[in-house]
């Protein structure tokens, strides 16, 4: 699987899910309706950079704090194609994998990216090309890579239910 797009950069470390999607909007459960509040507590103007071809390049411990799935739901609703982080907080990372949103760890690629950089990702090889320079991402366990490339936990569950003859 090849993913291509343009970088939107959140260089800061420890960006938490509260600033990415503030608590007062947690009573929304429809991903489409979550879109207007993504980045609301961090930098609402960043939403203007989301043009449907975004690869989000993020700092260390990205998505720390609350387990609110509203953040990756809103990222997906904005058609963000992949998140590349210097590192990720555990629950946020799981949430991305479960929603079929690729999330790769590669500090060097993030450091090299500027807003608007051309990014090309070879998911199988774990190679991230930023403006023509190639970086190797931290290897992703097969289970997680298959989970992402097959669309996440919903298709996984459907297959499991089909295998069990329904439930």
């Amino acid at each position, binding site marked *: 699987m090849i993913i291509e797009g343009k970088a939107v950069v959140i260089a800061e470390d420890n960006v938490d899910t509260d600033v990415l999607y503030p608590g007062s909007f947690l009573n929304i459960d429809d991903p489409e309706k979550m879109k207007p509040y993504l980045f609301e507590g961090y930098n609402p103007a960043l939403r203007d950079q989301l043009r449907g071809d975004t690869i989000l390049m993020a700092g260390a411990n990205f998505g720390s704090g609350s387990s609110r799935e509203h953040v990756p739901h809103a990222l997906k609703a904005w058609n963000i194609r992949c998140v590349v982080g210097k590192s990720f907080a*555990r629950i946020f990372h*799981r949430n991305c994998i479960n929603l079929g949103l690729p999330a790769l760890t590669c500090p060097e690629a993030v450091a090299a990216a500027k807003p608007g950089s051309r990014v090309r990702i070879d998911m199988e090889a774990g190679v991230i090309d930023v403006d023509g320079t190639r970086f190797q991402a931290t290897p992703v366990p097969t289970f997680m890579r298959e989970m992402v490339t097959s669309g*996440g936990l919903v298709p996984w569950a459907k297959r499991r239910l089909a295998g069990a003859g329904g439930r």
Partner: protein
Amino acid sequence: MPHTLAEKILLAHSDVKRIAPGDIVMTRCDVVMANDVSGPVAFRVMEQMGAAKVFDPSKVVMVADHFTPAKDAISAGLQKRLKDWSEAQGVTYYGQGRGGIEHTLLCEEGWVVPGSIIAGGDSHTCTYGALGAFGTGFGSTDIAACLAFGEFWQTVPGTIQIELTGQKRPYVTGKDVILAVIDRIGVAGGTNMALEFVGPGTEALSIDERLAVANMAVEAGSETGLFPADDRTAAYLAGRTNRSWKAERSDPDASFAARHRIDLDTLPPLVARPHSPGNVAPVAETKGVRVDQVYIGNCSNGTITDLRQAAEILRGRKVHPRCRAIIVPATQRIYRQAMKEGLLDIFVEAGAMVSMPTCGACFGGHMGVLGPGENAVATTNRNFKGRMGSGEAQVFLANAWVAAAAAVAGEIVHPAEVLKGEAA
């Protein structure tokens, strides 16, 4: 092969014969929990999965606690869905006025026993580590799969062992212990790790204090924060649960990712300054910060122990005119106990507001949201920018002694100063 406590618990809940950090294993849960924020999203995902019924209604519990009582019509709609879904599925539902804040409540109600695995649709599910359970937080899609199958995929964590030595000094609580840990290892220092608390210092920590410690394990990035079960755990569980359990601990020769020692003899009351739980300093270094709101409550520090500490400060004193104080007993049971002990009267007499159990203001939802330029001292677990409302507000995390003292002084002070009557 020697194993850590976390590995032993995971091994007992999976079909694999061997286990090591980094392995991905399908893990069975003993309890699946969600609330009025994570639940309805999970129900929608469960429908998308094509699963009509939960795997085992006796292992599922729903708690209305975040936007309760409903802050607006949208929130009321979510809470109605939580209630209706619970009824349709035949699962346990703690409705408004019948429960409280999920994590304190589930411990209180006997859902959590040592060695069990609890999957919760809330990041502070790690609180259950206080009772030696592998509680860990998930987003709604994981919870949907847990509801459907009773399982989740889990990367086996390494373990960071924290040894507590010495004796706590006055006005130092579990809150200060965990702030010291976060200060030591950093807000991402526990990523892909379980924390494990051992040593003579753990014996002196009550279950309420252990709840406060385990609760903030996630603020160090950790999966959970385990206290191996001991006599205090057994005493707490007696009469609360009929689930079977046995005390387990890490093998002495188990492999730990790191070991740290926290010396309680030298630990002062601490404060986490804006905007990170890792921005820790002794209370003395934040002295004099003007305080507009004090918030005593939440899933880490809304226990009867916290309320008693607050009452000791507020008894016969007044909340400073420039400050407002909100006190939130974590559960209906704690509320009633506080009432019996006369604590609520002390609070109201002091000019504090006593709220019904709710997560409310802790996450900036409602019931005490901060405005621009305001400072708060809160016994909660997160002081991220905008966490309690305005992005221009500042939140200082501290224990209940420090929070109550700030309410009286209208500024951050060491609690001993207020008790000695030295505050302005």
